[in-house]
């Protein structure tokens, strides 16, 4: 699959997941890897990219067992970006469906 396309889909999936609430890396990557065949390592690259773009920020929070977990939180800018990308995706799918 085209790499840029893949990146777009994965970014959208990650942001859409975080709109439902903050999650830590393990939890987030597990949810997405269960649905799509994508490694956690790849998702950490996506997360880093989204963070550097200002769509996410991170904070540490104590975990009941073991060291603190790094949580990911979507920013207002991230929500706006997710909304735009989602609309683009839906419009893309709609067009593709006509061809299938």
């Amino acid at each position, binding site marked *: 699959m085209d790499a840029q396309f893949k990146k777009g889909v994965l970014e959208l999936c990650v942001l859409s997941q975080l709109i439902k609430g903050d999650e830590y890396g*393990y939890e987030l990557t597990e949810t997405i890897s269960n649905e799509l065949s994508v490694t956690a390592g790849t998702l950490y690259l996506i997360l880093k990219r989204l963070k550097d773009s200002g769509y996410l920020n991170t904070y540490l929070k104590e975990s009941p067992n073991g060291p603190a977990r790094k949580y990911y939180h979507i920013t207002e800018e991230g929500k706006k970006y997710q909304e735009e990308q989602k609309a683009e*995706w839906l419009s893309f799918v*709609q067009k593709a469906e006509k061809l299938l």
Partner: protein
Amino acid sequence: MAVLRTESGKTIMTKQEYLEQLQRRLSAYPEDFRQDMLDAFEGHFQEGLSQGRSEEEVMDDLGSIDDVMNNIDVLYDGPKKSSTEDNMQNLRKNLNDLSDTLTRTMKSAAGVVKDSVDHTDWSSFEGTTGDVVNIKDGSTFQAVYVKGTDGNVDVELVPSDHLAYQFSSRSSLFSPSQAVLSTTFNGSAAGLVVKNGSAKLTVFLPETMRSAELELSSGNCRGKALSLDRIDIRQQSGDTDLASSKIKDVRLKSVSGDLCIKDSVLRTL
């Protein structure tokens, strides 16, 4: 999407070896990137192991280091080496972006159109994306027609003291082309047509504008505090949201979008 998961476990490594190798291979990347990635991978090991999974299983989750390295350029596309030069360049770019965003936000929030581009020949879009473009003698127009069917075109109608518009092309991975706005006029009707992609278009309507007609595919339409004789909106999948408006004749058609009208006075003929 199976391409992302490469076969792992061909060479059995320990957690320690895996992380050391990752650190070595990330050494050419900026400190901030390397540190965040190592933190994330270490955190993943800690979490996985504390849930009783084996080191091998966690490495399988994370994918092979080759896999990660192969994906860096495409998925992260950040700077390879951190130099002061690069950092300064990024900083300047961020500052410019920020100042553009602020200018735009302030203009649209106030609904005023100072420092805008004067647009007199009314033939095609001349401003830079994001500029508010004033229409000279805009009060001679009584109807506006907006069409955006090539992409995702969001339209916002805003009452104002004169006719103007603000256009921003929006390319994305799913529709990479830059949208183009062209304008036409025919007697008392003004036409704004977005072609070739996705965009956001704000149209500032003076009191003299009595009628608006919109034809959109997947964009949304929003209007607030409008006073019109007639509005006609035809959409495929976008939503329409009208609030606090007085409109005599309303025609809305949406194949799969939501229609919302709030605090408005309507008189359907």
